[in-house]
């Protein structure tokens, strides 16, 4: 199967118009999906660059983001939403109706299994009854029994973080991390994210058996400069890198 390329944007950063334009003008088939982050008051597992996008996004009124979601729908780009549980908690109804309004059926909640493990089960039930699929967010620190448990309660693909937080670049043996993840999560598609620095890293992930990559921090500077061409150019590089492998 063709390796998948996911791109992350924080909603509201740098502004809604830029994101709408960027997505609208994106070449056909360049990305396999978008991961859209709801701006958070406490993006604790994000590195300084993405942290900045949350701060910059300021407002958390979800209606503001409708145009971005709409253009995704128009272009047929698959979307999932990322929300910290700390935000979801206080804004549950709005978020759920935002998802349903845009027919988004997938959500990533990066802090759920870490800081809210004890209420994760009722939360997942709630998502289920709202028809939303929970995409487990795992990383190298996720214990086996946690992985086993959430593999049983969902049949979604998996988002796997390579680094302890986004954007930072710790020394990493990509091969061994990816191999461990794919062997633990046999039978599931795994998209790797967090700290992919360049096409080489991306290719190595696919070579090691990963099913796709997610890119975020690498694009922030260009987005911040409203430089859509450059963003697309970078995305194309990643695309080539992973397609080349197969």
């Amino acid at each position, binding site marked *: 199967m063709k390796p998948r390329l996911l791109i992350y944007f924080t909603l509201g950063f740098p502004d809604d118009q830029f994101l709408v334009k960027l997505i609208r003008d994106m070449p056909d088939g360049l990305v396999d999906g978008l991961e859209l982050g709801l701006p958070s008051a406490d993006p*604790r*597992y994000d*590195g*300084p660059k993405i*942290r*900045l996008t949350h*701060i910059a996004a300021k407002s958390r009124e979800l209606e503001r983001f409708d145009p971005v979601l709409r253009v995704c729908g128009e272009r047929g780009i698959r979307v999932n939403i990322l929300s910290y549980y700390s935000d979801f908690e206080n804004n549950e109804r709005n978020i759920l109706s935002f998802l349903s309004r845009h027919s988004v059926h997938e959500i990533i909640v990066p802090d759920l*299994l*870490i*800081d809210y*493990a004890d209420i994760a089960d009722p939360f997942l039930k709630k998502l289920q009854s709202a028809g939303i699929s929970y995409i487990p967010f795992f990383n*190298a*620190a*996720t*214990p*086996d*029994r*946690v992985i086993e448990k959430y593999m049983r309660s969902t049949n979604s693909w998996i988002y796997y973080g390579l*680094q*302890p*937080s986004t*954007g*930072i*670049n*710790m*020394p*990493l*043996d990509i091969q*061994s*991390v990816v191999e*461990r993840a794919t062997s633990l999560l046999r039978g599931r598609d795994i998209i790797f994210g967090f700290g992919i620095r360049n096409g080489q890293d991306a290719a190595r992930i696919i070579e090691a058996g990963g099913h796709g990559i997610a890119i975020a921090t690498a694009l922030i500077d260009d987005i911040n400069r409203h430089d859509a061409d450059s963003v697309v150019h970078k995305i194309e590089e990643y695309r080539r890198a992973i397609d080349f492998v197969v």
Partner: protein
Amino acid sequence: MYQTKEQEILPEYWYNVVPDLPEQLSPPKDSSRDSSSIELLKQILPEKLLEQEFSFRRNERIPDEIMDLYIQIGRPTPLVRARNLEKKLSYSGKIFFKYEGATVTGSHKINTALPQAYYAANEGVEEVVTETGAGQWGTATALAASLNSMRSKVFMVSTSYKQKPLRKQIMEIYGANVVSSPSNETDFGKKILKENKDHPGSLGIAISEAVEYALEKGYKYMLGSVMNSVITHQSIIGLETKKQLELQGEEADVMIGCVGGGSNFSGFAFPFISGKAEMIATTAEEVPKFTHGKFGYDFIDTAGILPQLKMFSLGADFVPPGIYAGGLRYHGAAPALSMLVHSGRIRAEDVGENEVISAMRLFSGTQGIIPAPESGHAIASAIRYARQDPASKKTIVVNISGHGLLDLSIFSRGKQ
């Protein structure tokens, strides 16, 4: 130790508990909004160490070079049945102790100092920097540096620097450059000395100075506890113990160790975590991090240069009373250990000075070993346990993290 049969006891891999934790470990947290103190680690820690820190492989292969050094410094350390103590306590079960004091530097600290220094040396570093409170970590660092042909610099908490000339001397024999902290060699130290030129120092301050110094000079910093990779290295204690018990057809019912930053306890106990053994983590009554601390994010160092960790803590600015067991004065405890105490898998226990000293006397008089005062806490818990139910048939295994030959003054405190 050092026997032909050492290979039977020495593990080939260190064990990282993280994949076996009941819940996911919270990652370290940046302290500031727009810079990454996590990325700062890259500047002061060897790359290979960070790779270990964040990849959380259950089994981490021990490089051959480190294995050779482990053997040179006295691994495997003995696991001894404390028959004389059992008799003295009329305890019907068995008491074993794992004796980390048998390493050449006299404590478990060398178990992580060796790989850290080795990784640094492999990156071409010429000098490593660290802090020391009780002196054990500085000693281990100094030898590990010497064995890897590097210089070492040790910021030694001022009170210890004054009270423990022998410790300073050993570090110097191993070639270390030892300075009293707070010192005039860092901005942070200068600032503190300016406020109080007789400041007694603290581990948090000394860490801050060492980190600042390493950053400034482009050297690597050596961390003696708390970090997960350190605990992984220390797993050699528990892995050996497991094998040693196995070879004797024994099984641990209760495992006891003392907690400063948590490295000796975790290294000792974690390889048994999936089993049924009861576990007791003993802290000093004067530094009751588990029983009176808060479980949440807090700083590793006083200056807040390093990231925050989610752990039990009494606060990074906690100023501990001048207790005899310098190694137990740290305000926090390693995240994985904190989680397991929080979850109830590991029980925490505080013991006070008098109980510790009389436990140490009892132990020395029956087993001959003069334990480190830190380890004395674990012994006190073990004795307490055995006395509660002398008819019990349980096998108690206690970790003695170091010897106390250079801390003998503590016994005078306990004199009636």
